[in-house]
């Protein structure tokens, strides 16, 4: 057993659909310390979401295991709260109720009713959403929904916070704003965070380490880059920081020159991802859903 807070050991994932076998992940190993902010970056379809879903317990690995705080991950739970790409708020509940449902399930029997209410409000205030407790998701903007999603995850006091491309669906200004906010919260609370992203600047700005994945099929970790810039970081100052540009260039070089080391190329990786349609197994399932019933997402 390793002494790390979160260990991912020899992870392999194979998706089967009838006779089609897709080798998604091959031998992924990663160790994360408590309080670390780690980003996983790679081309789309490379299986980075699969890694996150396995850590969350939403998908089972074919072989290998995930160990968090000396316990093996076997099923999903609030100690690994996920912020989903498209917020995934329940549209029939208010902002407050969305967070409170998670709080109630996590702290039932531990906190009193009043404590749970205060904790829900506290977390919504932490993401500056204290003003919209009674609004329902369709009444607030995309950025606000994502804030609520973050509040819901934080409210579960997770051992590790999992962010699945949390800013992907937002416009540039809102994204920058929310990134700053996530940085502030990370500095304040010192959570352990794993973030999936395909945005190089975002990865360098936020992370302590960037895990770069090769293209699928059979994706694995190609390289890990440690970002040696002290926190708290400032977006504007970082733009002129010589190291920032160095790191940025390193990630870009990997993504555009060397990411095909393990696989056949970006195009193959994408088609492999598209082939996985099994509703129970596919890592791209959320995206498939989106294609079938786009209107339900506009909520």
């Amino acid at each position, binding site marked *: 057993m390793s002494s790390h807070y979160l260990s991912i050991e020899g992870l392999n994932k194979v998706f089967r659909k009838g006779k089609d076998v897709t080798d998604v992940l091959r031998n992924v190993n990663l160790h994360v310390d408590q309080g670390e902010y780690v980003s996983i970056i790679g081309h789309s379809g490379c299986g980075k979401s699969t890694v996150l879903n396995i850590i*969350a317990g939403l998908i089972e690995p074919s072989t290998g295991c995930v160990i968090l705080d000396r316990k093996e991950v076997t099923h999903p739970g609030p100690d690994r709260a996920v912020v989903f790409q498209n917020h*995934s708020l329940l549209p029939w509940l208010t902002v407050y109720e969305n967070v409170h449902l998670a709080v109630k399930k996590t702290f039932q029997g531990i906190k009193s009713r009043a404590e749970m209410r205060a904790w829900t409000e506290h977390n919504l205030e932490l993401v500056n959403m204290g003003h919209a407790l009674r609004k329902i998701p369709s009444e607030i903007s995309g950025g606000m929904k994502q804030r609520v999603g973050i509040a819901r995850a934080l409210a579960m006091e997770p051992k590790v916070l999992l962010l699945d491309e949390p800013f992907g669906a937002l416009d540039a200004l809102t994204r920058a704003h929310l990134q700053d906010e996530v940085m502030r919260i990370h500095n304040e609370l010192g959570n352990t965070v794993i973030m999936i992203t395909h945005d190089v600047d975002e990865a360098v700005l936020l992370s302590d380490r960037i895990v770069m994945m090769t293209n699928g099929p059979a994706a694995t970790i190609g390289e890990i880059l440690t970002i040696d810039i002290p926190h708290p970081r400032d977006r504007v100052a970082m733009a002129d920081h010589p190291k920032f540009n160095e790191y940025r260039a390193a990630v870009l070089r990997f993504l555009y020159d060397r990411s095909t080391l393990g696989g056949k190329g970006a195009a193959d990786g994408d088609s492999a991802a598209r082939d996985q349609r099994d509703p129970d197994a596919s890592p791209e399932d959320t995206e498939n859903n989106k294609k079938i019933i786009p209107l339900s997402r506009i909520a």
Partner: protein
Amino acid sequence: MTTTTFSDDFFQRLQTVRDCLVHRALPPVTVILGLLIVWQILCSREGAHLPTPVAVVQETWELIIHPFYDHGGNDVGMGWQILASLKRVAYGYSLAVIAGVSLGVLVGISTWAMRGLDPVFQVLRTVPPLAWLPIALAGFQNNNPSAIFVIFITAIWPIIINTSVGVRQIPMDYRNVARVIRLNGWEYFHRIMLPAAAPYIFSGLRIGIGLSWLAIVAAEMLIGGVGIGFFIWDAWNASLISDIVLALVYVGIVGFILDRIVARIGQQLTRGVTV
């Protein structure tokens, strides 16, 4: 000062009410008046078999102004006739809602149940409502339960089918959220499944109530007794064409109101959830 603001306010409101009337009420009123005039002209000709609207009102005036008289037997006012039909619909439809939503959820969550039941549903739902009536009469040996059964069997198919589609369409994200915060089976059912499928369920309920009302009139024509359907049949046998016309107007209006009630409940309960 105050009087000016008051009168300003008053006129402002008057303006709003007038605009509303002009934009909302004027088009349907114009169209209905136009249709009545055409009807009046067509049926005023020599040898017309149907009464004019004016004749309808004249001949049915007693029925219109006394909707709740009761002379015993079938000889009761239109209000009672409609209430009797509504009562049958209420029983049959309520049973269809309970059974339909339950079966729909079952078919939605279980692939095995779907594969087994779906072919049965697809065949049975094409059977015309009235074709069930003889079977029901044979089974129940009684008119009233048979009519209720016809309503039930008519309304249940769209409810089952829409509910099952709604349950199957629940986005993966909601299921993932439920798994991360560890909702148990019951919590998942009433916190996620029912609200997520509600828009589909309500479109099924709306189709169901419409079909129920269609079926009750036809079923009552055959089973007799008090009810708007048999009222129409009775009027036809007595050659009271104007009574039939009045009954049709009432049937239409009641059907419209039923549809609106279900739609309104649906809107209230599915706030924010769009399909």
